């Protein structure tokens, strides 16, 4: 019974970490992706400079292994959350790792928009904001949903890594019981729940994608 309660609590923690950091990464990552995209297609000198700056920063963050990133952001985590233990603290490092990922994914999705659509926006006299709201986002929406699905699934596995260093959740439980106390049964339950979460995210994501894609 005790174990069951612990499993439920760990599951909720994993779900909480995944979706909270997922939400933040979308909120910051997609606009960053838009900035990358717009500056990359612009002919202006200033745009090229801005693009290079963001490009380098994102590359740096993406090349840091997650486990090292967790350690590096400890001061920031302490500042924001007050502690470095628990699901809330893990959200800081998860989000910092996921934003650049989301930004790159969005950038490459936006780049798949045919160049003629940009011409169309110009000939219709659209400004940047109108272009983003009426063409860029709507035309790539199904792909954006697919990107978010992928992001969340990646975050599930990242929460397990964070779990190893005190974030809680299913990852922490797997290590506590499975690795340190040789309770392989609990390790299996853990694994099954992780697989289920991933499957559900994938299933729902694909469903939404299908509904909004007009074919």
């Amino acid at each position, binding site marked *: 019974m005790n174990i069951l309660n612990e499993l439920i609590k760990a599951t909720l923690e994993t779900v909480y970490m995944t979706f909270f950091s997922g939400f933040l990464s979308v909120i910051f990552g997609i606009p960053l992706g838009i900035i990358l995209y717009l500056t990359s297609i612009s002919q202006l000198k200033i745009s090229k400079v801005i693009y290079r700056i963001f490009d380098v920063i994102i590359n740096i963050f993406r090349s840091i292994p997650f486990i090292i990133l967790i350690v590096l952001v400890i001061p920031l985590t302490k500042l924001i959350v007050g502690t470095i233990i628990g699901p809330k603290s893990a959200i800081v490092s998860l989000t910092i790792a996921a934003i650049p990922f989301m930004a790159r994914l969005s950038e490459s999705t936006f780049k798949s928009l*045919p160049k*003629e*659509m940009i*011409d*169309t926006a*110009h*000939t*219709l*006299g*659209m*400004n940047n904001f*109108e272009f983003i709201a*009426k*063409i860029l986002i*709507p*035309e790539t*929406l199904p792909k954006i949903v697919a990107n978010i699905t992928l992001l969340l699934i990646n975050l599930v596995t990242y929460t397990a890594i964070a779990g190893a260093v005190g974030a809680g959740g299913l990852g922490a439980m797997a290590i506590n019981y499975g690795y340190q106390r040789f309770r392989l049964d609990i390790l299996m339950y853990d694994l099954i729940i992780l697989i289920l979460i991933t499957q559900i995210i994938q299933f729902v994501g694909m469903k939404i994608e299908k509904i909004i894609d*007009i*074919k």
Partner: protein
Amino acid sequence: MLEVKNLNLTYDGKNYVLKDISFKLEKGEILGIIGLSGAGKSSLLKALNLLEKPQGEILFNNIDLTQLSRKELRKFRKKIGVAFQHYNLLSRKTVFENISLPLILNKENEIEKKVSNVIKKVGLEHRKNAFPAHLSGGEKQRVSIARAIVSNPDILFLDEPTSALDPKTTEKILELILKINQDMKISTIIVTHEMDVIKRICDKILYLKNGKVHYFGEVYRFFSEFEKELNEEFYRDINYNYGKLKLKNGKIIKVIFYGESVGKPVLNKISKKYDITFNILYGKIEDLKNAPFGKLILEIEGEKTNEFINDLKEHVYALEVLRL
């Protein structure tokens, strides 16, 4: 209404894809831009739209578009309608919403009414709530044209509007373009690589070759003067060297009819007058937009062939002796 002077365009700063292009378009005229793939047709259209920044002058009602600031240009675009080769419709918006887009962007009023009118004009009443993915190619082209004309532009640009369509649908779209041109007195520039499009609806033609204007002027003159080159470049298969034909000993002439002379029995009359017998080797009559255009290749025999030729010359648009 539109005058282009010494337009040059380069994408990389070195190689010019448009060289010294000049032409003029009067109000209500349809100009066809023709050329082989890679000749620079789309580039010219982009330059005229200021989607690429060209050197030279583009005078639109005496305002040089190349000198406008970005903001001024954005306002000016209302007067220019563009229908793209690949339609470029918004996939998540219905036919009605797609067509209303320019009006919404311009913050116009009575949008519903204006859009309904245009939908009727292009014959899409029954499809107005459909999404682009559910339309046929011809229907998409109609939506694209409707979107281009809904804000009552002074000039309409069409890039290869029929290239992806079957002949029957092409015919319908050409009819639509003609109708719009006549109803709205809208000047139109149409880019194409199909000779038939030029023949059917254009008043003037601009023939692009390697980024240069190879010909600019009336359509009928183009077809008579550039015939040989056209045959070689656009329809290689029907090109034939009639001068080499091994016939008895007759002379071979080529006669071009244009306008009135097509409908008259000149050939018959004049051949009787000089007692000439003729043998038709090739013949074709086509409808150009303003008048029919005919071409005959004849073998002629008789005593007075020279007199016959001189007389016939007076009554037809052009005559050329292919073999004496």
